């Protein structure tokens, strides 16, 4: 299953997504452990009391005093690795389209009409009058001098139908890997 997803990502130019996922997998899952230090017969021992709340401490007759949090990590399970990959694909193939859409929407949204008079001017102070900004249709990105990164525009990403189809398929894949 994981191999098929990786081949798909690689075939569609998303090696950088795989690299990111691999880095996350190599680091595993962060886990905090709570250890309680005590001394028995002159020897210092550490007891794992992770997850015990105050009530559990009271019932067990042990004191919370002497406990300390330690950071640890555990390896990801196969299922967690596949889920991470599917989530990463969703962030690139679906969420990014939504961000492109929102980026343009926001720029048209914030104009406070109450700050503008009926002629479409902004009144900031008595003597300052500004023309109202025209609506924004698109954001494009072009490389500056010396840059080789590819140009892109929000227009190329904003396609709700395509996004929702990709989201639906990824949800089905997600269900398949859990079944």
């Amino acid at each position, binding site marked *: 299953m994981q191999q098929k*997803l990786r081949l798909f990502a690689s075939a*569609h130019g998303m090696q950088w997504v795989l690299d990111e996922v691999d880095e996350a997998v190599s680091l595993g899952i962060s886990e905090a452990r709570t250890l309680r230090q005590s001394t028995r017969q002159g020897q210092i021992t550490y007891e794992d009391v992770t997850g015990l709340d105050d009530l559990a401490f009271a019932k067990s007759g042990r004191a919370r005093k002497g406990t300390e949090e330690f950071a640890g990590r555990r390896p990801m399970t196969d299922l967690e690795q596949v889920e991470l990959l599917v989530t990463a694909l969703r962030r690139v193939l679906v*969420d990014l389209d*939504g961000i492109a859409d929102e980026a343009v929407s926001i720029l048209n949204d*914030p104009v406070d009409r109450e700050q503008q008079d009926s002629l479409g001017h902004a009144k900031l102070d008595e003597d300052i009058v500004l023309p109202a900004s*025209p609506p924004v249709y698109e954001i494009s*990105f072009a490389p*500056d001098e010396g840059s080789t990164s590819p140009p892109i525009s929000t227009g*190329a990403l904003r396609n709700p139908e395509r996004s929702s189809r990709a989201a639906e398929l*990824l949800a089905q894949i997600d269900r398949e890997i859990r079944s």
Partner: protein
Amino acid sequence: MTKIDDLLADLGDAINGREVSYNSASAASDIYEGYAFGLVIRAAVAAGGFIVYRDRKGNAVDRLLFRTSPGMLYSTAHPYTYGVLYFPGCDPLELHVGVRVQGKSGVLHECDVLVLSMNEANLSRSRSVAPRGTRSLMAIECKYYASYLSLYLARGFHGLHSDLGLKYPFFVANLRAQRIERYLTYHNRNWENGVIPHSRHAVYFEGQVREAFKKYQSIHGALAP
């Protein structure tokens, strides 16, 4: 063919209509910077500001053009867009995407979204020099990642702003990452992770930016008679 094979084939068909390549992380970062630019503008308007978009020649624009990777504010390679932000009684501010800024050490750094005074921006354009971090107001470090935020991003942000010395640096990312949040909090840095459309974190981030603009106005705005 298994069901997964069929689903992946369908997914491939669905995304093949997209006119943009997925073969680099830079496209994702660019789009996210555009989104963060919009959030800053919405926060500025919420703080009582008024925004107009200009290109290098001062023309009003309705199709915004930003840099794919950081460049010099005074660059003439393309008619890059910037926002001009007016607050009542204050000197105008400018908002730029992907520009280099000079740190206290004299080294140039990259700012994904930068807010600075129009005077400093005019100096940059007229003398072809990078704006100074110490004379800039706000910078947003934007991180869009597919699965994982490395701690070095937070370390880089902390080091960057130790040198830039501008008043309001913010770290925003689309993902949550507890160790990054802990590291930045420990170093007293402003951050908001999980900033994506319609999330409460986006609202929180806008609130932080609005607060910064409020303080700017209270300090730089004209006092009422």
